[in-house]
Structures are given as C-alpha cells and as structure tokens.
C-alpha cells in the first residue's frame, strides 16, 4: 500500500505539471500532447479515485494539498472531458471532496468550490453556441436531446472535408491537420450507412475519372480511402461489395471497375491478414453466396506457392467452378454470374492461367482445366456447348502460335493472323476475341521470338482506341501482378515496361 502511494505521489507531480502546460488545450501542440497522454491520464485518475474514496475530505486535503488545482485544470481541458470515461472519474473524485456536514467555514468553502466544479463539468462551455442553445430551448429541447444529432452533423461535415482534402492533395496551409483514426471512421460507417456509400461513390468517381489504367495509383487511393481496412468488418465489406456488383452490372463488366474491385479485394485480404492471425469472422460472412471451399482456394496467395506448382490451385479452382456452374441441380452456390463475380474478385487467377498456357505453348497439350477457366472468366453466360467451342478455338490458337514459334517464317503478320483468324473463318464473338488478344499479348511478352515483333504486332492489333486501351490495361495489370508476386522475368518485365511507356506516351 505504501509503495502504491509513493508511486501515486510521483505520478501526481508529473500530471500536475503536464496539466499546467496543457491549460485549456487551445494550441495545436498542447492538443496533440494532450491526446497522446489521454489513456495514461485516465488510468492515473482511476488510481487517484481508488485512493481518495478511502478517505474523508479533510484527509484528502492533508494528503494531496494541491488536489484542487489538479482537478480544476483537468476539468477545464475539453479533451480530457471528452475522452472515454475521464469525465466520470473526475466526477467521482470530486464527490470524495464533498463533506456531508461541514463544521467550519473552511469545510463549507471546500464544499462550495467542489459544487462549482461539478456544475462546470455538467454545464461547461454553455456559451459556446448561444444561438443554437437559444433556438433549441425555444423548440423545447434540452441539450441531452440534441447533442447526439449535433455531433453527428459536425463529424460528418469534418469527414467529408477531410476526404476532400485527402483526395485533392493535402492543403493544410489554411487550417490545422486533423486525422481521424481508422476506428473512428469505422464507427461512423457502421452507424451511418449513407456516409459509407458516399465514401465508396467518391472513390469510384476518383478512380474512373483520373486513374484509369494505373493500378499502382489505384492501390494508393484504395488504401487511403480506408475502405479495405474497414471492410474487415463484414457489414462494411458486404455494402462495398454490393456497390461493386451494381457498378459491374450497370457498366456491363467495364474493365476499370473490374480492376478496381480486384485491387480492393487484394488490399482487403492484406488488411485481413494483418489484423488477425485468426480471422474474427467466418469467410461465409463475407461471401455468403459462395461455396466456402471455393473461397478458401481462391484466397490462397500465389506468392505462397512455388511458381512451378501454380497449376495445382488453378486446376482445383477450375474443377470446382465447373462443378458448380455446369451442374444444374446445384442451386445453393449461386448461378454463373455469382460465381463469375466471385472469381472476378480474385482476377489474378485467370491471368495466371493465361500466362501458364502461354509459357508452356508448344510443349504439350494445354490442360483442359485452364482452358475452361479462361473461357468461363471471359464469358460466364455461355452454355456448355458454346464454352466447349471457345475452348477449342483457344486450343487452336495456342497450337498455331506454338508452330509459329519454331517456324522460320515468324512475322508480325503471321502472328496476328494466327490469333485473329478463326477456324471456320467466321468472326469470333467479342469476348473470345478479347481472350485471343490476351493470349497473343502474353505470347509477345514470353516467347523469345515474340519479343522481337512485339511493337509491330501491337501496332497492327490496335485498330481502335478501345483495343489500345485494352492493351495498355493488360500491360499495366501484368506488371502490377508481377510486382506483387515477385515474378522473376527480367526480359519480359523490361519489355512490358517499355511498351507501356511508349503506348502511354502515344495516348
């Protein structure tokens, strides 16, 4: 007990000094310092209360003659009063000073002083918003009635101002910088759906208007928006996911939206792993319509698997999806769109599948599972026959490319023809065309012969702005993926970078 009280005494000195420096926390420095120490100060207050409650008011003054100063200064600091339970503990401490039956003028004065301070805590800062007080009184409302609404509005306007500052670059010259901790933003979003929706829409606007085709920048914006972190809470994840879903439906699968969703999912998974070793919520709460085992496989990080073994999870994913999608009796795991939507979150897998097919072109028969996965991801609505047809086309393209690889007559024209001419001479459906373009681009990056003709082929390919846009997007996504997976391919990487810079310069 003696040891405790010694500890308390030295702490006491420390805090009285601190409080004198902070005063009413009216400058930025005092505010920041106060905020830094709030939890410890509250702990100290608790210890003080534990000591004080055992004493009567005279003993308190004997033991801590300057207690009045300490309590008064604390009560004048709005940050302390606004923090957690500090105001309550201060009140308890003050209650310990009240004498039920004062015997002399000294004790009466102490009572009076203490009552004054108690009044102050409960009625402090009244003159702050006189007009508002007057008006609300006129309406018949007490502060207890309207403070919640007022706080909500003040915080909301702060948040939207912060967000604007944030996304337009910080311009803190005109005002002090205020940072809301993630937990506060999370609380706000959980309690007030419109502000979450606004945050997501704001992000969409930003992404679609200015950051097309640069996934690294998109990732920055995504992380700054705090949405991936907040989405660790399933309720928030579901709302954001819904909005992506609608955006995809409305834009009929626009590549920008897809890319943004993939970045979001990546950042979200990263945040999830950072937060807990043990996930707090079951996967099913995030993806309620999907088969849990499928989700588990999709969530695997290719980074954690040796490159040579990537075909395994790919095969697994393909088989599982095939089973779900093509087996009509399975009602519970959602139709083709739902499963395509799920796969689209983890778009990397389809890209890896394409790459795998190309890097092994000419070696052996392309695995059916990979072909199926590619066909599904580019055209989820196809029936089984249509899909089989696509797979056959893709196989043909691959074998043609493989033959060209070894042929002395390899030229840009030949390559393009290989990719674009269909077996029957009929034009391929657009989704299939997109797919074969992707394969060709992969070929250009990986096959040694392809690299030499890359620029020529691309020039021939990019007949429209849209296609050019697609190519730029492909290169950007590929580089982004390679960076994250640590793919070691210096030659391909260099080529991709050069091509991207050239094409961007042209645009």
């Amino acid at each position: 007990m003696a040891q405790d009280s010694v500890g308390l005494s030295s702490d006491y000195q420390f805090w009285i000094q601190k409080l004198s420096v902070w005063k009413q926390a009216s400058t930025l420095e005092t505010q920041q310092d106060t905020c830094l120490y709030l939890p410890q100060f509250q702990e100290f207050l608790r210890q003080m209360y534990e000591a004080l409650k055992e004493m009567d008011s005279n003993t308190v003054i004997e033991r801590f003659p300057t207690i009045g100063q300490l309590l008064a200064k604390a009560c004048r600091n709005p940050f302390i009063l606004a923090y957690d339970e500090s105001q309550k503990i201060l009140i308890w401490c003050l209650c310990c000073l009240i004498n039920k039956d004062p015997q002399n003028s000294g004790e009466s004065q102490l009572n009076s002083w203490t009552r004054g301070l108690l009044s102050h805590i409960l009625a402090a800062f009244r003159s702050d918003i006189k007009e508002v007080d007057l008006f609300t009184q006129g309406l018949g409302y007490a502060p207890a009635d309207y403070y919640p609404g007022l706080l909500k509005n003040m915080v909301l306007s702060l948040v939207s101002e912060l967000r604007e500052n944030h996304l337009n670059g910080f311009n803190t010259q005109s005002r002090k910088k205020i940072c809301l901790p993630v937990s506060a933003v999370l609380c706000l979003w959980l309690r007030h759906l419109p502000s979450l929706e606004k945050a997501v829409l704001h992000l969409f606007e930003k992404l679609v208007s200015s950051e097309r085709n640069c996934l690294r920048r998109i990732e920055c914006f995504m992380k700054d928006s705090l949405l991936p972190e907040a989405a660790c809470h399933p309720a928030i994840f579901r709302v954001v996911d819904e909005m992506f879903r609608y955006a995809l439906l409305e834009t009929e699968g626009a590549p920008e939206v897809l890319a943004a969703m993939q970045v979001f999912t990546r950042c979200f998974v990263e945040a999830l792993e950072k937060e807990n070793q043990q996930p707090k919520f079951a996967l099913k709460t995030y993806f309620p319509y999907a088969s849990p085992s499928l989700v588990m496989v999709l969530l695997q990080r290719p980074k954690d698997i040796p490159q040579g073994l990537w075909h395994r999870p790919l095969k697994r994913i393909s088989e599982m999806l095939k089973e779900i999608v093509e087996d009509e009796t399975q009602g519970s795991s959602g139709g083709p769109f739902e499963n395509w939507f799920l796969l689209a979150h983890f778009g990397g897998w389809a890209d890896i599948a394409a790459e795998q097919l190309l890097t092994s072109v000419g070696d052996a028969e392309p695995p059916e599972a990979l072909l199926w996965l590619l066909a599904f991801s580019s055209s989820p609505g196809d029936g089984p026959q249509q899909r089989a047809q696509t797979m056959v086309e893709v196989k043909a393209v691959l074998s043609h490319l493989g033959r060209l690889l070894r042929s002395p007559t390899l030229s840009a024209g030949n390559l393009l023809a290989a990719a674009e001419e269909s077996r029957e001479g009929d034009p391929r459906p657009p989704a299939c065309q997109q797919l074969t373009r992707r394969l060709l681009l992969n070929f250009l990056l990986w096959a040694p012969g392809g690299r030499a003709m890359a620029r020529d082929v691309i020039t021939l390919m990019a007949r429209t702005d849209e296609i050019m846009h697609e190519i730029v997007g492909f290169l950007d996504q590929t580089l982004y993926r390679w960076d994250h997976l640590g793919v070691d391919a210096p030659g391909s990487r260099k080529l991709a970078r050069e091509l991207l810079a050239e094409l961007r310069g042209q645009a």
Partner: protein
Amino acid sequence: MDSLLQQLERFSEVLAVSRTTHVSTWDAATVRRALQWARYLRHVHRRFGRHARIRKALERRLQNQWKQEGGSGPAPALGLTNFQALGHCDLLLSLRLLANRALGDAAFHYLLQELFPGPGVPGAEEGTLQGSLALLARRRAAVHMLRSSAYRENPVLQEDSLMKTQAELLLERLQEVGEAHAEGPGRFLSRLWEHLPHNNFLKVTAAALLLPPSSPRHQEEESELGNPRRAGERGRELLHWLLGKSEVIVAFCRNLPAGLLTSVAGRHPEVSRVYLGLLTDWGRHLHYDLQKGIWIGTESQDVPWEELYGRFQSLCQAPPPLKDEVLTTLKSCKAQDGDFEVPGLSIWTDLLLALESGA
C-alpha cells in the same frame, strides 16, 4: 389516465421548484422522493411510448402546460415540453438539483451518492443516471472541442452543421406538434416567430426547406413510432406557414443572403413566385436620379439598386426553370414599361442590361 395526468402535473411542479431557493428546505428524503417520481415517469415514457392514444393525450397536456407557462418566451422553457422530454425527466431534475446552490449540504451529499454510485458492474451503465450524466458532459466537451479546433462556418449555409442541426430539430418538433394537434404547427411557428431572434430563425427556416427529403430507407431508421415521414413532406407545414405570413416571408426575402434565397426558390416554386413578386415590387419603388445617374429610393426601407441587382444576378445563375422564369419576368416588366432599350427610363431595362454585361 387521469391519475397519470395528475402525476404529470405534480411532477412538473416539483421540476419547477427544483430551480428555486425553495429547495433549501429539502432533505435527503425529499430528494429521494423526487428522484423516485422522476424514475416513475421515465417508466411511463418507456411503457406508453408505443401507445399512440396515451402518448397523444400526454403530449397535448404537456404542450398546453408549456404554452401556459409562456414557453419559448423570454424565460427559458420551464420543464417538460413534450412526451419525449419524459424520457429524460430524471436527467433534467438531476441537473437542476446539481446546479442549485440553495440545496443543503446533507441533501446534496445524498444526491451525489444516488447519482454517482461509482464504478459498479461494467455494462450496467446503460440507462443509469450516472451513465447519462457522464455522457452529457462528454458530448458537451466534444462539441466544444470540435467547435473550437475543427469548425469553420460553412459558407454554404444549408450545409453548415450547426444550421443543419437546428433545421432538423425544427422539422422534428413540427412533426410532433402536428401529430398532437392538426393546427398545431402553424400556431407553434407563430409563437417561435414572436419569441426567438428573427435572423437565426429565418436562416434555420431556409436550411430546413433545403434539407434533403427523407428516403424510404432512412424513414425506417429514423421513425420512432412506426409512423414514417413521407418523403418530401417534411417541410410542407413550414412552407405553408411561411407563405401564409406576409410579415415573415417579406423578412425572409429581404434579410437572407441572395445565394441562400436562390437555392430555396429553386427548390420551392411557390417561394420563387413570391420572391419574384417582392423583387418587382421593390424595384418599382426606385426612381432614376438624372444628376447622379443611378436608381435610388426615397424611403429608408427601400431596397437599394445594388442589392436588387445582386439578388437578380444570383437568380440568373440558378439552373432552369428558375433562371428562365426570372428572365421572363424581367422582360415582361420591361415590356410593360414601354420596352425601352435606353438606360435610365425603366429599371427593368437597366437591370437586364447590367445582367447581360455582368454575365
């Protein structure tokens, strides 16, 4: 029912006394009884909150009482003003007693023991007086903190958080009053107009008329009694009253900033009609001073040229149909005056000329 109303009346008396020096005669037992009474009424609030008939009856009685006490008059409201206040009546009583210096030391000591028993079972704080009082102090400090370090008055008045809050409260109160009495809102607003500072009241009215209409989803969130606000109807009674009182609408159009009025007029065509009418009226009061070469008024309350021009300019920056309506009005006034193109003959000509060159 009657006994309930009696209880209500007696407690209101207690509440009134709690602010006076009369409490010097109170001892611990009196304090205890008063707190118990408050607790009972809180229980009534909880119990009958969903019982529309009883709630209405209580609401009506409280509002009448409040009116009789000269509510919203120069003296602040004396106590229970509506049914919702019953939910906080113990808080209200406690705050008054805590602040009342006339309360004796022994009684005060007892009060503190009752209100602040200290750390107890964690999680049992919900709904206790200790919790509510601490929360009140906390929120008050938070408002002060935000206000002094992070708040700046928003130049777009209707988006200012303080304005918005007052506007939301006004509409909320109007709804309650409307539910208790059909003609309630109009009389209520007139009373507010008599007793509150006009400038702030007008701004709040404008902000209220510019609040977004509640969407169906938000209605479910916000409605307490399962009596949802119909979207867009929130400001209807307010608008009706505003347009019905010439003194108010004139002050509204005269004193509020041009941009704010343009927004309101854009949203509510009835207001734009009255506003334009007033503007044309004010314009007709001005005459051309040949020597100085400007339009001036003769009386002190005449709206000066600059202000008139400023308001028309703001209106012309509004999106159609308001903008078109304004230009049509100006052109037709100009035509009525003789359709002159030369300045100095018709104020409408001059305004149009100035607007065109300024644009």
